[in-house]
């Protein structure tokens, strides 16, 4: 396990420099991931093949991007259940507009604006309406999904220009384009959370909202920012998904909120807020995807796999509490 150890050391060093991520949780996830990858590499010839890893990273990227937004929300002690519906929203809006001859770029901008609007409204309802985040976003999740079906008449949108669908299929420098987007999102988010005032405010609010208020931090503005960030990234994921499926699907993104929450929590971000960060979420996303992928490769009964993933989420949280 010499390599495994040196990798852990390396991760450890990197994390020492990133201040707010809870180091021990991230190390646990990293170690589990490395061990699992070793095991899969030894027991399946396909696992380490370029084709398999390419697919693995490409499919993880979409919910990975959502999970990053979810991390912002959870760090403030909130939750965003509307992300899956926002994925559906931008996927339908973008494809409809392209189909109707609107330029690609403009379609994306308008769809993203709609997504961010949903996020801003979430934030306003939560902060000014004093509605618990769980309820507020459960509501917007349902409302948005209904609106998607109204707009699209619950029909799939296909026959998109090749340039749109090719983006998700293709790679740059050997890595899937979608994965590059995810990496960029992670990098920017990591920078925002650890190095900017906005990021520091996210942690402060998650740690103690009243202390934050009395320290002059605007709670309303930051809560709105956080839900807007989450919706922005979900919207981005929706466009990535539409490109990958080469179509707009009214039910696209259903259930993604749970995958995103699972990845965030497995990655060590505490639901109570202020503890965790995007590096953990990155590893958590990869870990969950690797388990699914490995299960398929090893021919494990998919139902059993589901049971394993469910247990893993719970065990991960218990392990992190123990390591405190």
């Amino acid at each position, binding site marked *: 396990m010499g390599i495994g150890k040196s990798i852990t050391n390396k991760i450890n060093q990197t994390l020492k420099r990133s*201040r*707010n991520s809870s180091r021990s949780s991230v190390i646990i996830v990293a170690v589990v991931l490395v061990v699992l990858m070793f095991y899969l590499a030894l027991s399946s010839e396909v696992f380490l093949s370029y084709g398999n890893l390419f697919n693995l990273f490409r499919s993880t990227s979409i919910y990975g991007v959502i999970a990053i937004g979810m991390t912002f929300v959870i760090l403030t002690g909130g939750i965003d259940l509307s992300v899956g519906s926002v994925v559906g929203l931008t996927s339908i809006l973008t494809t409809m507009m392209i189909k109707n001859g609107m330029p690609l770029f403009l379609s994306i901008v308008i769809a993203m604006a709609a997504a961010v609007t949903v996020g801003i409204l979430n934030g306003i309802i939560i902060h000014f309406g004093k509605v618990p985040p769980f309820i507020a976003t459960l509501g917007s999740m349902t409302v948005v999904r209904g609106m998607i079906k109204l707009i699209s008449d619950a029909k799939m949108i296909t026959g998109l220009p090749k340039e749109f669908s090719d983006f998700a299929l293709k790679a740059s420098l050997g890595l899937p384009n979608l994965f590059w987007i995810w990496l960029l999102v992670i990098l920017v988010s990591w920078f925002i959370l650890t*190095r*900017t*005032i*906005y990021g*520091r405010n996210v*942690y*402060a609010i*998650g*740690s*103690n909202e*009243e*202390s*934050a*208020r*009395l*320290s*002059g*931090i*605007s709670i309303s503005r930051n809560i709105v920012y956080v839900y807007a960030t989450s919706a922005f990234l979900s919207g981005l994921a929706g466009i990535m998904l539409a490109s990958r499926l080469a179509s707009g699907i009214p039910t696209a993104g259903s259930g993604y909120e749970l995958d995103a929450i699972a990845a965030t929590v497995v990655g060590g971000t505490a639901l109570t*807020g*202020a*503890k965790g960060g995007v590096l953990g979420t990155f590893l958590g996303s990869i870990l969950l995807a690797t388990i699914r992928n490995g299960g398929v490769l090893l021919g494990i009964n998919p139902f059993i796999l589901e049971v394993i993933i469910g247990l893993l989420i719970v065990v991960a949280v218990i392990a992190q509490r123990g390591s405190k």
Partner: protein
Amino acid sequence: MVKEKELLRVEDLHKSFPGVKALKGINFQVLSGEVHALVGENGAGKSTFIKCVMGVYKKDARSGGIFVENKEVDIHNPDQAMKLGLGAVYQDVMMARHLTVAENFFLGKLPHKAGIIDWRSAKKNTDKVLKELEIDVDSSSILGDLSIAKQEMVAIAKMYSNNCKVAIFDEPTALLSTEETDILFSLIRRLRDKGMGIIYISHRLEEIFELTDRITVFKDGTYVDTVRTEEVDEDRIIELMVGRSVEDMYGLNKPSRGETVLEVRNLSKKDVFEDISFDVRKGEIFGMFGLVGSGRSDIVSSIFGAEKPDSGTVLLNGSEINCKHPGDGISRGIGFLTEDRKHTGLFMELSCRDNTNALSYRKMSRFGVISRKKEAQNADAFRDKLRIKTPSMGQLTKNLSGGNQQKVVLSKWLSNDSDLLIIDEPTVGVDVGAKVEIYKLLESLLHQGKSILMISSYLPEVMGLADRILVVSEGRQMGIVEKNAYSLGNFDDEQKFIKLASGIV
């Protein structure tokens, strides 16, 4: 008097955590019918000791034994400790705030008939215990609606009803007013007279001399001495605790008072306070004294912008200010150290560095991007200046002792270079050593030309430190007393303040 019987004896107790020896050979004994004080600076090992006795921590193998009524016992968890007759009331009462008093009393063992809860008997039994201890609480009220003091008394009564023999009180008066403290003390005396042994932990030496029969002193995890309270004085105890004698703690060398910095005119808020007028001058400590619930914290919150007053004016350096939210107060150079650092001051899950810098990011950033170098510089500077005891400023704040946490909050406000510092109960839950350091810090702030508005419900502190004291009672201004009108330690003067604060003119 009943013959004193030994209830609890601890011999040569050791407790190590990875890298730290928290307790190094502690001896301790409690007799029936005595109140036994446990004192020591923060970090002396009091809490660790209590947790070992209560079975929260496992003692080291090489320790001597713990004996309950002369029988050696092995305590693995708090439940077992309770069954042996050991009970503890912690600083923040841990009960179900949304349930009734009676429900809390019987939590987990509600009386029932065939699975249906017998509310009548639960209520009856609760009332009986409350009456026996002369506690004025209705068993059907919701616990969270009661004052902290009453909640604490309910916790004590519950402990008593569980046949507790030794009761441990850890800083029970930290959040109580003077009045409530008196009521608590008479309750503790009643328990003592019923033959219980009381272990009493407090930073307030006055309380210890008022209440206890013997005092045991810990220092740095070791046992120093046990003395009879009547045979020693405060100075001697402080000497035992810190290993050096503390000269007059409150004797600050203050600069002469300068021009008026803050003027408050007829500030009112319906049903909270009315018609408050005073001014604070440069280089002075302006004291505000009142009982808990007198509106004193609301008054200063309104000046700072954390609450909205209905009418009145506030002038800072001669020009009117109207702070609508805390950010307004902060940007005008007002600092507000709240009374409850855990819930309204600190970010416990964040590092000391993040806490220290929380107000100053704008100064140390460009385009919203924070300079790590400046962050670290500022935090380290305050660690050195305030002598914050922590291995690194990257340490999570919740791992620090009360005194050091208070220094972190102070660092936060001092980082912002506030000209007017409002400090609400600056030394609650802070040990003597850190207290002296905080007082010295206030002194140096005055010399830097800053002004301090200090609220304290601890009379010796406010009498010793303040130049003038505004007394409030139920939101009404009872008067401003000048320093030359009273002297510290004078019993009659103290009585005068308490009468004023109680609304008796």
